[in-house]
C-alpha cells in the first residue's frame, strides 16, 4: 500500500507544482514593485502613541467578566441574575471556584445572540491583534477545566432523563408563567427585561410584543396548543420526580460537591422562590414550595455560593 501511495503522490505533485508556479507568477504580477515597497516601508514618518478610548469603553481587567441579564447594582454586588440560563452558569462558575465579575448586558452583545458569555481576562499572554475572544455558554465547561477547575462528569445514566425534565417540562412552565401570564408579565418580566432597555414607550411596547411572541412560538414548538393546566401539572410532576431523586442527600446523584446539574436546578428554584421577584400568579411557586428538600437545596446553594439571601 505505501509504495502505491507514494507513486500517486509523485503523479499529483507535478501538476501541482506547475499550478503553484502559475499562482506565484500571478502573485508577483500584483505584488508591489520593490522601489514602491521601500517607499511604503519608510512611511509613516512620525507615529504617536494611540488615542485614548471613550468613557463607555470597559477598562481591561485581570478578572474574566461574565455578561448576564442583571441590573447594574446587582451585577456590581455579585447577586444572582434573574435569567435562568445566566444564573445556571453564574452558579456553576461560583461552584467550581472560577473568580469572575458580572456585567449587565443584553442579547445583542453576545456572539451567539443569547446570554451568558464570558470575556476572559486580557493578560499579556493571550494578547492578540484580534483581542480577547468571548467564550459562549457551550464552551464554559472546557474553559473551567482549562483554568484548573475539577469537574465531575455525570456518570449516572438517568442524568440525561432528569436533565430533559428540566429542559422541557419545567422550562415550558417557566416560559408560560413568566411571559404569558398577564399579571406576571407586567410585574416581573416588564421591569426586569423591558424597562431597562429603553425609556421610550413605543420601543418598550414593540419589545414586549416581540418577547411574548417569541415565548409563544417556543411553547408551540413542543405541542400544537398551549394548555395551561397541562403545563402546570407536568411541571408539578417534574418537581415531584426531582424531589424523590434528591431524597435526603445534600446534592443530586449523591455527589459530595454540587455539580452542573445542581446549578441547573438552582437556576429555576432560586427564581421561583425569591421573594424579590414579586410573582403575582404563584401557582408554579406553590408547587415548588411543597417540595421541602428542593427548597432547602436552594437555600444551601444560596448561602454557600452567593453569600446568603
Amino acid at each position, binding site marked *: 500500500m505505501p509504495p502505491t501511495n507514494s507513486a500517486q503522490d509523485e503523479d499529483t505533485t507535478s501538476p501541482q507544482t506547475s499550478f503553484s508556479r502559475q499562482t506565484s507568477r500571478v502573485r508577483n504580477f500584483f505584488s*508591489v514593485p520593490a522601489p*514602491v515597497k521601500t*517607499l*511604503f516601508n519608510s*512611511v*509613516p*514618518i*512620525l*507615529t*504617536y*502613541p*494611540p*488615542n*485614548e*478610548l*471613550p*468613557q*463607555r*469603553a*470597559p477598562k*481591561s481587567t485581570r478578572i474574566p467578566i461574565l*455578561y448576564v441579564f442583571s441590573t447594574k447594582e446587582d451585577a456590581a454586588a455579585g447577586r444572582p441574575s434573574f435569567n435562568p440560563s445566566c444564573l445556571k452558569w453564574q452558579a456553576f462558575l461560583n461552584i467550581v471556584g472560577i473568580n469572575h465579575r458580572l*456585567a449587565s*448586558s*443584553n442579547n*445583542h*452583545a*453576545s*456572539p451567539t445572540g443569547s446570554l451568558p458569555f464570558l*470575556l476572559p481576562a486580557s493578560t499579556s499572554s493571550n494578547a492578540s*491583534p*484580534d*483581542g*480577547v*475572544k*468571548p467564550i459562549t455558554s457551550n464552551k464554559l465547561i472546557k474553559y473551567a477545566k482549562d483554568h484548573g477547575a475539577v469537574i465531575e462528569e455525570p456518570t449516572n445514566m438517568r442524568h440525561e432523563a432528569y436533565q430533559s425534565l428540566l429542559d422541557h417540562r419545567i422550562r415550558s412552565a417557566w416560559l408560560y408563567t413568566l411571559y404569558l401570564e398577564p399579571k406576571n408579565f407586567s410585574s416581573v418580566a416588564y421591569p426586569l427585561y423591558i424597562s431597562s*432597555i*429603553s*425609556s*421610550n414607550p*413605543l*420601543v418598550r411596547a*414593540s*419589545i414586549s410584543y416581540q418577547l411574548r411572541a417569541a415565548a409563544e412560538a417556543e411553547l408551540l414548538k413542543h405541542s400544537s396548543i398551549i394548555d395551561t393546566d397541562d403545563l402546570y401539572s407536568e411541571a408539578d410532576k417534574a418537581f415531584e420526580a426531582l424531589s424523590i431523586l434528591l431524597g435526603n442527600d445534600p446534592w443530586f446523584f449523591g455527589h459530595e460537591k454540587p455539580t452542573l446539574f445542581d446549578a441547573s436546578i438552582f437556576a429555576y428554584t432560586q427564581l421561583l422562590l425569591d421573594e424579590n421577584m414579586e410573582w403575582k400568579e404563584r401557582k408554579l411557586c406553590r408547587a415548588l414550595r411543597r417540595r421541602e428538600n428542593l427548597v432547602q437545596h436552594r437555600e444551601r446553594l444560596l448561602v454557600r455560593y452567593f453569600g446568603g439571601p
Partner: protein
Amino acid sequence: MSAVFLGRFGTWVNNTKSSSRECDDELEMASPVDQGDDLFESLRKTDEKKLEEKVKALAEKEAAYNEKAKERLMDLIGSNSTLPVTISSIRLIGAKHTRRSFLDRLFNPILSANRDAPYTLSEALEQVGSAADRLRKFDIYHEGISMFIDRPSPTDPSSTPTDIDVYLQARERGRISLKTGTDLGNVEGSAYGELHWRNIFGGAESLNLNASAGTRTRSAYQATFDTPILSDPDKRVSIDALSSSTLKPWASHEEALKGAGAKYSWATKSGTTHQVGYTGIWRQVTGLAANASPSVRNDAGDSAKSSISHTWVADRRNHPFIPTRGYLMKTVSEIAGWGPLQGDVAFWKSEIETSGAIPIPIPGIKGDSGVSFTAGLRAGMLYPLPLGFTASSQPSRINDRFQLGGPTDVRGFKIGGLGPRDGTDALGGDIFAAGSANLLIPFPRVGKDTPLRLQLFANAGRLLALKDRGGNTQRSVSSTIAQLGDGLPSMAAGFGAVYAHPVARFELNFSLPLVMRRGEEARKGLQFGVGINFL
C-alpha cells in the same frame, strides 16, 4: 419668459413667413430642364443636393425671421415699457389637477383688483414671470411654461381700456411615477426602487416611497410626504418615516434604525437654505462580528433618540464637484434628549463645514487657466447633556459619535481609520477637526473644458474622545479641545485624478500617510473614492 406674443403683431409675423414660401416656388419653376435620357437621372442626382440646399436656405431664413421678430418684440416692449396696464385676469391652461385655492394664493397678489396702483407693462411682465417661475419650482409641470398676453374685447363691459389678460400654458407631469435604478452615495453603491406620487391633493404635495439595498446599507425603506406651505415653493414641510439596516464593518456591527420625523425647510432670497426638524429614532446595535471588541459589546443593544436639528447651507460655488470659484458654508446642529425631548441619549452635537475655491492664474496663459486651489475645513463636537430633567450627563454611545477617515473624508486613511480604536474597531470620537488643501490641474493634453482634473492634495485630521474629568463636562470638553492641538494631526498627502460626472465625483488617488497614531489604519498606495461631498 419663454415665448411672448402680442396678439396683433403675431399675425403680422405669420404674414411675412407665408410670403417667403411663395418666393421659393418661383425658384423651383426657374430651374433648368435637360434634354434626352439623362433628364431623369440628372434630375434624380441634382435633386438631392438642391433639396439639401433648399432646406438649409429655408432654415436660415426662418432663423433670421425669428431673430428679427424677437428684436422687433423687444423693441416694442422696450418702447412700451411704461405703458400703464392693469391685469384683469390670469388663466392657467392645462392644470387639471391643481387646486383652485392653491393657485389663488399664488396669483391673487398680482391681479390689479388687489393692488391700488396700475402696473407699467414691464412691471406686469416681470410679476407674471416670477409667478411662472414659482410654478416651475413646484416640479408638477413639465419644463417650458409659456405665457401669452391678450387684450380683452372692448365690448366686454367689465374691462377697462388698460386691461390685459394673461394666459399661462403648462403641461402637468404624470402624477405617479415609478423608478428603479442604481444610486451612488458617499463610498456606497445601491440599487433602489422608488414610487413618486405628485400633486396628491392639487397643491403640489408629494409622497415618495423608496426601497433600496446596497453594498453597505443592507436594506432601507423610507416614506416621505412633502408639501409647500402657502403656495410658496421655498417653504416646505415634510414628514418622513424610515426603517433601515446598515453594516458598519469598521466597528464590527450592524445598526438597525426605525424612526420618524417632521421637518420644515425654507430658502432665503440670497440662496441659503435652512431646515429645522424633529426626529425620533430607535437604534439597535446588533449583529456583532465574532471578533468585535469589548467596547462594542458594551454598547450593543437598543437606544432611543429624540432630537431637534437645524441645518444651514450656503453654497456659492460655481460647480458642486470641481469648483473653481466661490465658497460653501454648512452647519448642522442637533440637540437630543434634553428637557421634554426625553429618550435614552442626551447631547448637543454640532458640525461645521466650510470650503472655498480660487482660480490660479498661470503667467503665459491668457484668461482662465483651469487651475484652481480648493481648501476645506470640517469640525464637530458632541457635548453630553443631562437626560430629561436629571442632573448628570451620561458618556456618549458609539451610535452618536463621529467617525473620521476615508476616501471622501481624510484621504489616505481607511473608512473610520482615525480616532480611538479598540483592537480593529473604530469607536468614534466626540470632538474632531479635519482640513484639506487640493490643487486641481487640468490634464495637459485634454484641456480645462473636460470634467477631468489632476489633483495634488494634503489633508489632516484629528478625532478625540472626551476625557474623563470626574463628571465636570465643561472641563472635559475644554481639555479635549486643547488636546486637538497636541502634536501634529494625523496627515496624509498624495496625488490622483478626479472625474466630475454629473452624478458624483470620482477620485483615484495614490497617497502615503505621513503622521499617524498607533492603531489608526492608513491606506498606503491607491485609493478609490466616489461621493457627493468631499473634504
